[in-house]
């Protein structure tokens, strides 16, 4: 066991994936000498060379589009998009090409690519650096979408994503990059918790909190606070956003009868809406209250001095739990 930050866990996971498979490449803006603006690729170019850790021209469509060609050639590119709000120039290549190549070829060719996106707010940044674009990608068939929330998952999930033949959008909770946790770096990859599975992080009996990425920590803190008030909340880290792994969610809600979905992204047509609909379809007679959502507001991401008012926090989560119990 090692105590590592989430960022360092990603770094070590990438390193191990590059050691395990010489076809793994890292591509992106400033990923080489600088090690990425968040230092997630720190030291990798030095050790693996600029042939495998590629500083690219400043053009996101170009990065993803050329990664497709490299994947056709037999490589496994891991693309870094520097910030969430910079992925949109690559959106066409991701949605029209990355997502559809396998289908278009009737299964004759795969694009084993990972597109890493640091996402979410809370770091006091300027516009375009704090967004949560996961719903855009989760809506697109042909992409798989995951989000890690803690150092151990970061270490394993990035390796699993790279080893997968599916194209994967990999969301990293940038404000949690510096949070520490225990990581068993000596374990084999095959022993890791499955990539496309949600996971109960804190068992409880009274209500179910559902989150992913940066909001998992918020929900765990809310559950700790609620316990002091005598409420026993279950917290589930969704981990996989497309496809969703709803079985543990259904089991939990059938037990608790109450569910609150939490994400930073605006609520309108967001992941929370899909989760709530699925719970309603499968657990209707178990529900004591409607599934509630705690999300960012349906506005553009605001200026950083007010972002704490925009982002769901412990109090807003507990307020929603109170409302659930009010039904």
């Amino acid at each position, binding site marked *: 066991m090692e105590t590592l930050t989430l960022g360092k866990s990603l770094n070590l996971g990438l390193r191990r994936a590059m050691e395990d498979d010489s076809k793994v490449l890292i591509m992106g803006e400033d990923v080489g000498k600088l090690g990425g603006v968040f230092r997630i690729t720190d030291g990798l170019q030095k050790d693996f060379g600029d042939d495998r850790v590629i500083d690219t021209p400043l053009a996101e469509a170009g990065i993803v*589009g050329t990664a497709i060609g490299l994947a056709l050639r037999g490589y496994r590119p891991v693309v870094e998009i520097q910030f969430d709000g910079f992925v949109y120039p690559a959106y066409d290549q991701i949605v029209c090409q990355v997502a559809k190549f*396998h289908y278009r070829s*009737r299964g004759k060719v795969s694009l084993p690519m990972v597109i890493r996106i640091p996402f979410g707010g809370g770091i006091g940044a300027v516009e375009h650096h704090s967004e949560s674009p996961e719903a855009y990608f989760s809506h697109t068939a042909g992409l798989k979408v995951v989000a890690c929330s803690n150092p151990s998952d970061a270490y394993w999930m990035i390796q699993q994503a790279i080893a997968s033949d599916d194209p994967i959008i990999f969301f990293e909770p940038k404000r949690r990059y510096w949070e520490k946790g225990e990581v068993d770096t000596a374990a084999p990859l095959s022993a890791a918790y499955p990539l496309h599975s949600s996971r109960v992080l804190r068992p409880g009996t009274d209500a179910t909190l559902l989150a992913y990425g940066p909001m998992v920590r918020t929900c765990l803190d809310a559950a700790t606070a609620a316990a002091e008030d005598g409420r026993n909340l279950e917290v589930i880290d969704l981990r996989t956003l497309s496809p969703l792994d709803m079985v543990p969610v259904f089991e939990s809600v059938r037990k608790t009868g109450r569910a609150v979905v939490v994400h930073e992204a605006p609520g309108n047509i967001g992941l929370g809406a899909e989760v709530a609909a699925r719970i309603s379809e499968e657990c209707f007679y178990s529900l004591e209250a409607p599934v509630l959502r705690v999300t960012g507001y349906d506005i553009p991401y605001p200026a950083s001095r007010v972002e704490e008012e925009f982002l769901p926090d412990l109090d807003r989560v507990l307020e929603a739990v109170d409302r659930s119990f009010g039904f």
Partner: protein
Amino acid sequence: MTKVERAASRRGGKRSGPPEPEFVQLLTPEGDRVSHPDYSVDFTDDELRGLYRDLVTVRKLDAEATALQRQGELGIWASLLGQEAAQVGSGRALRKQDMAFPTYREHGVLYCRNIDPIMPLGLFRGVDQGGWDPVAHRFNMYTIVIGAQTLHATGYAMGIVKDGKVGDDDETSEAVIAYFGDGATSQGDVNESFIFSSVYNAPIVFFCQNNQYAISEPLERQTRIPLYQRAAGFGFPGIRVDGNDVLATYAVTRAALDNARHGQGPTLIEAYTYRMGAHTTSDDPTRYRVASEVEAWQAKDPVVRMRKMLEKQGLADEAFFAAVDEQAKVEAVALRERVLSMPDPDPATMFDHVYPNGSPLIDKQRAEFETYHASFEGSH
């Protein structure tokens, strides 16, 4: 007075189109072979006759596909009429290990890669969306989003460098050709592919068929300078070739591909040609261009000039031309019969191949779909 001017004066309008541009030409519209200081071909007589056979055959197959669309057997067809020399010349210039990234109009290139011409017809009939292995055929699936494939081609070429497959040996070193049109040169993807290929010195040839129109929009809506001159701004050579001249197109493309495979980086080729037909069968070109312009280009026909050359040089007789026409007809009839016998896919197969590793969501929807269909009386 030239034919262009005569045609324009008959219509009482001004002379249509720009003056003939500077380009590499080895075969005039009249069928005369001319020399160029930098480019030449050394085809045998058999090979020259073979190029003529290619030109005739791809035109015939294309006409058959247009007819199939008119009869409701294809949903749409993107005709290559007028661009046969650009496609046969560049297609035959590829070495067997080279990789091509087409748009959706490169049926002639596909034919010259010795690929069964039925392969893309499923896409136009609507029974699939391509469905072939790009790497096995050294020919990517047709890409419909304009210009997107130039980036895939560039990445593939970057991979050739990583694999150590750039070098002096023409039989093993590899190169890539990326096809696109004049309209695509306005796309960001195409410009980004120029940048990536330039800074990584990728072994790629950008082959732009300037057929003068992006659906209805003429070249002047895309550019103020000749397209081949754009290459200079990206740091690699650009050259314009008479795209209706199969010999010049071959010579220029072969040289650019070999330069690429030898490690000299990208080249932009502008094949100056003309889309004689509509953009696709859904288009009506009479709304945006005049008949005199089409007539002027008919006088520069790529197939006719090759036939004239063979006749003038005594390389082929009437029996040869008749045999070529007959063989093309046989291939077209065979293509027609195979299109007509293409079965519609089983609807449940629409759930196949969304992900290499599958998805429980899709498995569930497929099961529900099958149960729903099985619920109808008389279903099996």
